[in-house]
């Protein structure tokens, strides 16, 4: 909690429907990608949003930044509703909320030098003089552990892990308070994943960052998050403090998900729980099982 008791991010009843035509001239059908999603993130914390493909976790992240316009709901950031912002207000607010994408290979413009990629948000938001920006970019390079000697290189001249650092330096350029990290390490090799996770944790401590950490890797989410929500087909099915959710999962889907994670121990024999569609019919509302631990059961 911040001193005045308001969470940094307060998402309420967020929904997003996509309209599609079923075939050429077919009937219009709407798909609920995100359905009545509600959660809060306290300043300086990491909140993990977990789900498999099609769960709506990525759409949720983008709706918060209005990279996708949600259909309904509210997104309160420091006590104001982002969904009510004018174009101008939204532009200013984006300084405080940034996103880091999954794929370090396609999220950086291949024709721009690393320096330009990191500097671009400063130019767009008219920050500083050219010399000041140059200093800031060098500082950001140091902050994310990149060699300032490589400022003039192009993205293809960096490894995957280094590219993710460039993406992070760009996201940090405007001193945001919230970073939405959408699968930030899932495209990286195991040994490099750990480096980037360590960097994210170091930066959080130094810059007092708040993370919405979106991922499918339960081991990583467990490691980095204070609280976690599990999504399935657009809905949150369980939400709670990380340690409690992992040790005492309440929703059968959470149990199934945990049972499916391969354990790096050849002697660990765990019983897999197959996912059963009947668990979600009808969709139940979340109820508080223990303090701060909610499940749709």
């Amino acid at each position, binding site marked *: 909690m911040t001193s005045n008791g308001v969470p940094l991010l307060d998402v309420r009843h967020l929904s997003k429907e996509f309209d599609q035509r079923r075939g050429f001239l077919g009937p219009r059908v709407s798909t609920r990608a995100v359905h009545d999603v509600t959660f809060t993130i306290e300043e300086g914390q990491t909140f993990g949003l977990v789900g498999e493909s099609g769960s709506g976790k990525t759409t949720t992240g983008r709706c918060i930044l209005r990279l996708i316009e949600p259909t309904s709901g509210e997104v309160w950031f420091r006590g104001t509703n982002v969904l009510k912002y004018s174009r101008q207000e939204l532009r200013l607010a984006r300084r405080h909320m940034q996103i880091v994408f999954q794929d370090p290979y396609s999220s950086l413009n291949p024709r721009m030098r690393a320096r330009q990629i990191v500097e671009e948000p400063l130019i767009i938001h008219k920050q500083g003089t050219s010399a000041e920006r140059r200093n800031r970019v060098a500082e950001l390079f140091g902050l994310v552990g990149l060699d300032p000697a490589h400022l003039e290189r192009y993205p293809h001249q960096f490894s995957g892990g280094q590219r993710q650092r460039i993406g992070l330096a760009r996201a940090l350029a405007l001193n945001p308070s919230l970073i939405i990290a959408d699968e930030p390490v899932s495209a990286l090799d195991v*040994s490099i994943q750990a480096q980037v996770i360590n960097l994210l944790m170091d930066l959080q401590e130094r810059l007092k960052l708040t993370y919405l950490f979106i991922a*499918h890797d339960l081991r990583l989410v467990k490691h980095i998050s204070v609280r976690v929500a599990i999504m399935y087909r657009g809905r949150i099915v369980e939400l709670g403090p990380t340690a409690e959710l992992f040790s005492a999962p309440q929703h059968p889907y959470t149990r199934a998900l945990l049972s499916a994670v391969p354990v*790096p121990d050849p002697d660990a024999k765990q019983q897999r729980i197959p996912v059963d569609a009947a668990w979600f019919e009808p969709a139940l509302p979340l109820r508080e099982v223990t303090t701060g631990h909610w499940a749709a059961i």
Partner: protein
Amino acid sequence: MTALLSVRGLTTAFDLGGRSVAAVNDISFEVRAGETLSLVGESGSGKSVTALSILRLVQPPGRIAGGSIVFRDRDLLTLPEAEMRRIRGAEIALIFQEPMTALNPVMTIGSQIAEALLVHGKANRTEARQRAIELLDAVRLPDPARRVRDYPHQLSGGMRQRVLIAIALACRPALLIADEPTTALDVTIQAEILDLLREMKSRFSLSLLLITHDLGVVAETADRVAVMYAGRIVEESPVREIFRIPKHPYTQGLLASMPGATPGTRLRAIEGTVPDIGALPPGCAFGPRCPQHFARCDTAPPPFFDVGVEHQARCYLHEPGNGGQK
């Protein structure tokens, strides 16, 4: 156990810009009848090139530069191409990571299974159709008699991977090479496919060469493990030993870097990055990143040293006389 596949001194090089770079560098291993050997490594370690080399599917500028690959008493590297074609799919089958792109989008899945049987003369058209349904049933695709007429886009990612396994098993191969078979799948689907692979392995008396980067998948599936780094196997051992008493600092680093122990703490990352295989150091390729690096490491690439029963590591820490000391 006898070796079904025996790879000796395999080197696969890529001729790039006038120089030759060994993506797979003098590797030796065997896959025994009925076992699962897992090749573990990160991107660029050479594990997929190894799979392609076994089937002689390496495309120029890549070429197999040396070694032997003996499968059922025949050296695959000296067979005429026509004979090699009879082995591919019929005796050694391959499944890939991407179930989206490995299937033909304009053919029904039934026709694609039947094609595998027809090409190898294992069945006529009527039999092939019936066999396709049986195989789809074997890989637990629901309602196989109806699904056999489906096109790939009508199936989910997990179901497509089941179809690819059905195609791979159609001609009853002795060896299945699975290259990251579950990497593109969700975790619950991955669990189902790993269970299916295990079941198919005993039902069809398969040997499995499983290529993966995921140590969790290795622990659940493999009998033995070979860890690859920068084109070489750096450690080979039974699966239990690799997790209990890893001997190569790279294997130790990979295991230690996994999240798990204490949430919220720094992970024990391996520093640095995987080297460019075109510019490897003169000594151990892992040397520059190794926390236990000492002078000997820079002299020449280390050979294998025995570190246990059927357990070897390419690391000078285990050189006799060194006593594991720096």
